[in-house]
């Protein structure tokens, strides 16, 4: 585990070189141990792919130099030692997310399908037939970065990002797929839309998905999308 500062109020622990399930398990284990430890001065814990970042408030620590940074590093070492090999305690969720592919909801489905020589419906079937793993949540509120996209569907991001991607849009960016929970600018290829809210500000938690959760997509028709409640 490598520790380094992210500015003056966060420490990043890097647990592996890249994107793989074993690293994700260590990331989840450390993030859970840190959340349970409720260390003094710790304000937030952010797991992502191969890193866990701890945000702290330097003013909650004594004024002697390096003290806050060293204390947070020590807490992270302790939690890493405690969580090593144990694996995450929290149950990973399994979610089925309905998606209406193509048409106005998925204007880029034809582009994605065309690149791998498939018809639009076949590309949709391939996307909805795979199992996905949530590697990270971020970028915008509740946005899940999903690993497990079938290789033929890997498609580069759009040359020019869209100024506004509607909430619920399902996109492909390179080897990843994900869902835009709130309307935002976006450069991913948009292949469909879900009527399910992946981010609910009044919910606890507000984000539907967390790292480690499993996701499958289910094809629905435009009529089913409209009547979904």
């Amino acid at each position, binding site marked *: 585990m490598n520790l380094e500062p992210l500015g*003056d109020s966060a420490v990043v622990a890097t647990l592996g070189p890249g*994107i793989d399930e074993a690293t994700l398990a260590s990331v989840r284990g450390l*993030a859970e141990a840190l959340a349970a430890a409720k260390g003094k001065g710790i304000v937030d814990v952010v797991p*992502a792919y191969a890193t866990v970042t701890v945000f702290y408030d330097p003013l909650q620590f004594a004024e002697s130099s390096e003290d806050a940074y060293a204390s947070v590093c020590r807490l992270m070492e302790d939690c890493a030692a405690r969580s090593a090999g144990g694996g995450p305690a929290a149950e990973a969720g399994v979610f089925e997310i309905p998606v209406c592919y193509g048409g106005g909801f998925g204007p880029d489905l034809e582009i994605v399908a065309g690149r791998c020589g498939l018809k639009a419906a076949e590309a949709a079937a391939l996307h909805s037939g795979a199992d996905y793993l949530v590697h990270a*949540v971020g970028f915008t509120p509740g946005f899940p970065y999903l690993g497990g996209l079938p290789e033929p569907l890997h498609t580069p991001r759009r040359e020019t990002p869209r100024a506004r991607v509607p909430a619920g849009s399902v996109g492909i960016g390179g080897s990843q797929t994900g869902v835009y929970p709130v309307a935002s600018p976006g450069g991913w290829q948009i292949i469909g839309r879900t009527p399910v809210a992946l981010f609910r500000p009044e919910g606890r938690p*507000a984000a539907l998905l967390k790292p480690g959760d499993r996701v499958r997509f289910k094809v629905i028709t435009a009529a089913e999308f409209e009547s979904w409640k």
Partner: protein
Amino acid sequence: MEVRVIRAGMMTTVQDLGRRGHLAEGVPLGGAADPFALRVANLLVGNPEDAPALEITLIGPDLEFAEAAWVAVCGARFDGIPAWRPLRVEAGGRLKFGMRVEGCRAYLSISGGIDVEPVLGGRGTFLAAGLGGFHGRALGDGDMVRLLPSARHPTGHWSIDERVLPRYSPEPAVRVVPGAHALEYGTALYSGRFGVTPNCDRMGIRLGGPQLERSGRGDLVSAAVAPGTVQVPPDGHPIVLMADAQTLGGYPRVAHAVGVDMPLLAQLAPGDAVRFVASSVAEAHALAHAQEHRLAILRNGLAGKFNPS
């Protein structure tokens, strides 16, 4: 008690000191881009330091007060509005911001504070998700903004010692802690003068000027970023992330502005410039403690200047 928005200005939003505990869900810290100015503005009218206030950007609003109130404007300076001191607005009175004189963002606190519901632990506006603040959006002409009642008011004639204020400048030297990929960029960050492009908002400031060349190769795995992170996209023009920054980023991280210098960045407007100076985590913490010490002196000094105290 209400304030009527006659003209909303360019972008006027409700902000406080941000949300904590929701970064892992992709919800940014948010809150005032210049938290120091917001805290002092609140102190000057007897509010809690984290009370929601209005963040005013480049072009100020024109407001009408139904009842008398005390207000304070801190941060950017505007014609016709004395800054960094309590001001009395009479019932039916107007507070009209003139031309911007310096800085980018002013904070208008009103005695009692703005009455908006907390969302995910914060009362500030996160525009990109339409979350919090005044209906999740910037104020518009004709809006009515509700205030909480306040029984306290400043007494006597006084102003604060300007030596406690940040060293605002149209070309500040911002102290940074080196980032994870600093070694891939040499010392170019510290020798150049970077211009502030029109592409600057609460999420980040795109800088013009020297391009930073990366010696390393390959894509990075996305990891946490924070307000103050200086990231470098492939075009070599650095971006400084601000209060509403996304929670994860995949560009190389060359440096991070220290917390006490975030107000200097928040006051940059298009056409301004910035230089970067190398600092360390230890120095940044010492600076943060020193700033809190100055704020504590200010807070103590103000304690006897309100009725009822």
